[in-house]
């Protein structure tokens, strides 16, 4: 299969690693010199750019978390001057405070190139019509795929999300050969098409789907490929890294992570140490060339495995497999999915309690019992029991609204809950003990 940039994509592994090392070294020197945040964090971790003497020295560098971005909202993290910025994207913030990502012209170019390689690896190119049914706007999906598709010389049909019947008409009339959207939207489209009397498999020229931005399974892939007569490729990225960046190639054996763009590690989320090759762990990414919002050892929170063997397609870059879960693993309480981040989000708007919390899950008889422990904020104590009970029921009510499952609230003294960096430690699940 042809590559968009064969020199890079098929570069022998030792040369790739050498290139990564040079890029890493440059990045670390640049950030140490120009980013107060990185400078302070490196000093706090007693690491100096001179300590980076080979690629594996990356593990000497401190991690970055989503929290760091939130704490520096909206743009305190940016390392490019304002004059250099050409775009913002803002994450949806459904699981917390939104994060703002800034881009320089070079950043957009890097992102677009990453997708140009990716789309080419899915067999797309000149002559293809790519219907971009990701949302256009603050979300990175629409504009990201749009630019990537244009770069490879495909025709872009920028339909964005919604107006599904019209999308299906256009797909037929303009002969879309590929679509980029969420897996659930493609399923919806297939159903709407059938109601219109249109078979996507027989009545359209659609052959390829680039699906992502939400979790999906191999089972869904099989079903969609057979039902819609397409090849479905998984796409990966997060707004913090620019947006969707990496896809599977036609081998469908994991996302190719372009080594000149990203240095990936898979680590044990508890110890921070690398896992053995092929083992499951938390994906950690260093974006080697970003200007506006650089990321060193950014812990995305996705659980996956990595394969460094060259791919049968001829590309030498490592592959990351389908995301298997989140570090802040969701809890299932009486059949309802609960994310600790939802609890965090619910508590944010209640000044009477602190931001720290602990979730304790137990089983009472046959039923799951969820308790959220929160700290009564200094200053919101008034001596009256009824006032405290009111705060308690206010928190319980808000949690029920956010989680759709009842949680008992226990108010505790300020400062009494453990402080952890990782969200996972905020959950005590006694059901598994």
């Amino acid at each position, binding site marked *: 299969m042809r590559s968009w940039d064969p020199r890079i994509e098929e570069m022998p592994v030792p040369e790739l690693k050498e290139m990564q090392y040079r890029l890493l070294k440059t990045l670390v020197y640049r950030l140490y010199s120009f980013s107060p945040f990185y400078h302070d964090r490196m000093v706090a971790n007693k690491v100096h750019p001179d300590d980076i003497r080979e690629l594996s020295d990356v593990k000497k560098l401190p991690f970055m978390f989503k929290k760091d971005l939130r704490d520096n909202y909206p743009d305190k993290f940016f390392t490019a001057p304002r004059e250099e910025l050409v775009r913002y994207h803002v994450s949806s913030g459904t699981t917390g405070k939104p994060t703002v990502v800034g881009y320089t012209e070079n950043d957009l170019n890097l992102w677009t190139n990453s997708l140009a390689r990716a789309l080419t690896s899915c067999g797309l190119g000149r002559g293809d019509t790519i219907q971009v049914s990701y949302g256009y706007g603050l979300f990175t999906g629409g504009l990201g795929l749009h630019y990537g598709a244009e770069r490879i010389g495909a025709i872009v049909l920028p339909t964005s999300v919604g107006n599904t019947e019209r999308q299906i008409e256009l797909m037929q009339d303009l002969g879309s050969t590929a679509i980029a959207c969420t897996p659930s939207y493609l399923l919806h489209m297939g159903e709407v098409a059938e109601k219109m009397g249109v078979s996507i498999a027989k009545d359209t020229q659609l052959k390829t789907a680039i699906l992502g931005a939400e979790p999906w399974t191999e089972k869904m892939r099989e079903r969609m490929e057979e039902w819609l007569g397409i090849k479905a490729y998984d796409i990966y990225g997060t707004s913090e890294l620019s947006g969707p960046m990496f896809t599977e190639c036609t081998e469908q054996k994991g996302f190719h992570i372009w080594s000149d763009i990203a240095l990936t590690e898979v680590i044990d989320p508890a110890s921070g140490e690398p896992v053995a090759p092929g083992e499951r762990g938390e994906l950690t990414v260093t974006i080697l060339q970003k200007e506006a919002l650089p990321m060193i050892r950014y812990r995305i929170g996705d659980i996956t495995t990595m394969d460094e063997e060259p791919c049968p397609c001829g590309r030498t870059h490592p592959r990351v497999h389908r995301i298997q879960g989140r570090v802040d693993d969701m809890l299932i309480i009486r059949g309802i999915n609960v994310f600790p981040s939802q609890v965090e989000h619910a508590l944010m708007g209640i000044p009477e309690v602190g931001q720290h919390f602990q979730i304790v899950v137990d089983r009472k008889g046959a039923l799951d019992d969820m308790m959220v422990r929160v700290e009564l904020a200094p200053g919101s104590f008034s001596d009256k029991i009824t006032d405290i009970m009111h705060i*308690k029921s206010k928190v319980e009510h808000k949690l029920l609204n956010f989680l759709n499952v009842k949680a008992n609230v226990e108010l*505790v003294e*300020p400062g009494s809950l453990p402080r952890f960096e990782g969200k996972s430690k905020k959950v005590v699940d006694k059901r598994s003990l």
Partner: protein
Amino acid sequence: MDTKKYVIKQISVFSENRPGRLAAIAHALGEENVNILAFSIAEADGFGVVRALVDHPEKAKKKLVALGFNVAFTDVIAVRMKDKPGGLYEIAKLLGDANINIEYSYAYSGKEGAVLILRVDQVDDAIKKISAFGVQLIESSVFH
């Protein structure tokens, strides 16, 4: 009448309902050489409120806040009761008839008789009614 001198500053501390919390509070006050003259614990769902009359409320609050406790001051009054059957009834009826609500109360029996600590919704009115009835209120200066 000057009701102010009868208004006593009570210290209230939010506490988790688990072993050792009262000890932590009492230890902190002891360290500061603060004497506890009267106290009570109210417990609710998973937490409690420790209320106390102490000889140095500001010092007590400063210390407890420094240790991370949630602390509040509340105005209460102290009434010297007849230490005999019917003593409590007299005061409760007096306030009830005046439509003054007792939010909570606790008592101790000291050297000079029984003392009732009252948290009421209308402090000034309560002081006036009780004085007019001829019952002795204890001045705050006796405590601190």
